[in-house]
């Protein structure tokens, strides 16, 4: 048994001896005299003087790959590592450490042919002609890898769609990684992207279109991953992604970031980012649509088009998201807010009980109340329905005397006192002097306050229910004229999105 281990040990030693790095041969101070460096090997050399430059030629034997370089630091020498193409153009320059520090170049995209590695020293006082440095190179497959230099849109690396792309936030100075996605098949798609966290790096991801207009930006805290959810791709389209660390000198040569993407057909059931403003609103044609509040401060706009020119009532429900207080706003075709639904608090759903629409375009806007929270794990669901308006239904907005809803004496109206702070005005005409009975049914959670005005806006009578849930009823002799009835809760917070009240006006 012990003999077997001895043999194994011997084999490992032999193998190690075989991989002994080659030695630098001076002079190698320019490209013409560059020493060969195996793409999967190492070389030992010295910095004979402060001005010494050591050139190495790496010949790539395969069509494409990723080359990594590493030089171990030596005393008093401040290495600068320069990577150049066959025409000696500098592709990447690494100068991360000071005296005695290692330098490494990661994720260098290479193709079949020759490249040059130039090692130089930045410290004029360097004086260490005897200590050897070790420069090593490793060549890997480039499948699913960033290809440095990819610091601009022009040099962007392809991002794997429906797969993983890996890279490094390195070097730390002036480093940014650009990727591109080419969606060539015509159609509308939804792109979801998750980027893993890397210790010591607060990541920022920006999305640009082919004209390099920034479409979206998401970011995360130090060490956290980030996500881009429900990003709309209107193919054929080319998109660019710029990934970088938020802070200066942030980076990590040891840990990969991993970008996982999926491109799904857009079937109209998810938001399509960017939809942060009116012009970019996601069409909301189906009954339900989902979305994410991300990044912090996100506001998702959805466009709805009532189908006919007749009066319709919009009802909408917004599901809750853990830890968030969502707000639903309805805006008109110019983006002016009509109603803001903020009935409930954190982790509670919101309901728009009914809003009168005509034949125009409207927008539903979902946002988070504080503007400081985001969540890419939990989506919200927004549902909507249109109900044709008919006499006997409340027509919001009827919150002011100017927008009071007409009701005829002898008829009734069913309505909601919602959202929070809602006030409902009704207007009726009395054509003959008579005694008019006004009845409002009770609503759970609402203590009614009713006020009757004449046509000149003078208050004629105020009535308050004895307690929440109770209805009110009063009778008054009225001369011919126009009257308005104002209904509200005694407290603006009182509302009820579940139950309707009924207002009935009768002449006796």
């Amino acid at each position, binding site marked *: 048994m012990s003999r077997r281990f001895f043999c194994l040990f011997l084999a490992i030693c032999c193998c190690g001896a075989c991989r002994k790095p080659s030695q630098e041969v001076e002079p190698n101070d320019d490209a013409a005299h560059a020493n060969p460096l195996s793409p999967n090997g190492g070389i030992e050399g010295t910095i004979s003087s402060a001005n010494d430059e050591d050139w190495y030629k790496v010949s790539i034997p395969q069509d494409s790959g990723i080359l990594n370089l590493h030089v171990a630091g030596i005393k008093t020498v401040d290495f600068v590592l320069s990577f150049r193409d066959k025409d000696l153009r500098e592709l990447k320059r690494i100068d991360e450490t000071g005296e005695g520090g290692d330098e490494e170049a990661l994720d260098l995209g290479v193709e079949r042919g020759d490249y040059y590695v130039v090692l130089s020293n930045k410290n004029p006082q360097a004086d260490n002609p005897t200590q050897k440095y070790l420069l090593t190179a490793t060549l890997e497959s480039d499948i699913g890898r960033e290809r440095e230099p990819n610091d601009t849109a022009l040099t962007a690396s392809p991002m794997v769609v429906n797969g993983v792309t890996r890279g490094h936030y390195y070097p730390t100075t002036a480093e940014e990684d650009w990727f591109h996605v080419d969606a060539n098949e015509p159609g509308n798609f939804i792109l979801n992207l998750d980027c893993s966290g890397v210790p010591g790096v607060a990541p920022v991801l920006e999305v640009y279109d082919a004209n390099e207009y920034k479409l979206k930006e998401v970011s995360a805290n130090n060490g956290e991953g980030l996500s881009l959810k429900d990003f709309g791709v209107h193919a054929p389209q080319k998109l660019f992604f710029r990934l970088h660390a938020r802070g200066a000198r942030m980076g990590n040569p040891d840990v990969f970031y991993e970008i996982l993407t999926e491109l799904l057909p857009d079937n109209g059931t998810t938001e399509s980012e960017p939809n942060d403003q009116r012009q970019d609103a996601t069409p909301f044609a189906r009954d339900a649509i989902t979305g994410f509040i991300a990044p912090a401060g996100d506001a998702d706009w959805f466009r709805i088009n009532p189908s006919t020119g*007749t009066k319709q009532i919009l009802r909408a429900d917004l599901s809750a998201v853990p830890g968030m207080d969502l707000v639903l706003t309805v805006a008109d075709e110019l983006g002016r807010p009509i109603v803001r639904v903020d009935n409930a608090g954190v982790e509670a759903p919101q309901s728009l009980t009914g809003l009168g629409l*005509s034949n*125009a375009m409207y927008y539903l806007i979902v946002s988070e109340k504080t503007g400081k929270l985001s969540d890419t794990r939990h989506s919200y669901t927004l549902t909507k329905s249109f109900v044709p308006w008919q006499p006997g239904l409340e027509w919001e907005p009827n919150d002011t005397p100017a*927008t009071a809803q*007409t009701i005829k004496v002898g008829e009734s109206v069913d309505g909601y006192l919602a959202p929070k702070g809602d006030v409902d005005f009704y207007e009726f*005409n009395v054509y003959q002097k008579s005694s008019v009975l006004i009845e409002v049914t009770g609503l759970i959670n609402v203590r009614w306050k009713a006020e009757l005005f004449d*046509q000149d806006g003078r208050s004629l009578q105020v009535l308050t229910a004895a307690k929440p849930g109770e209805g009110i009823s009063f009778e008054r002799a009225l001369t*011919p004229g126009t009257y308005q009835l104002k209904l509200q809760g005694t407290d603006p917070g009182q509302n009820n999105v579940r139950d309707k009240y009924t207002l009935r006006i009768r002449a006796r």
Partner: protein
Amino acid sequence: MKKIVLLAGVLMFSACRHRPLKPEGPTANFEFSAYEIVETPSEDIQEYVTVFINGQEKGSTEIDLKSRLKFWRTELAPGNYPMRFEVWDSTNGMTGVRRADDFQPRERFVRVEPGQKTSVVLKFYDKGRQNFLYITRE
């Protein structure tokens, strides 16, 4: 002969069209005016408003662009009158297309006080879908 037939046709067509009644004279103590907020010049087509008092048609404003004030004046005895205003649009160069009921102003009472001039201004906005009535007396 052809010209005569053509002229007669034009006259008949004109008679069939809903023509607004002319505004009343200068002794009026009641003045109605209407205008509309338009967002683009292309929306600024012609319209007029017909006035109903006590359920009877009493007259109409002149025909003019939506954005311009259009008037109708009359003399009314003091009292409280139920008034209804009906908007007619000009579409494709034609006048006399009554706007849908949903977008017509609601009927309401207007009080005319003795010795005072009552002015009612009807303002349409939101592409004519909403309206607002101002009543002033001087």
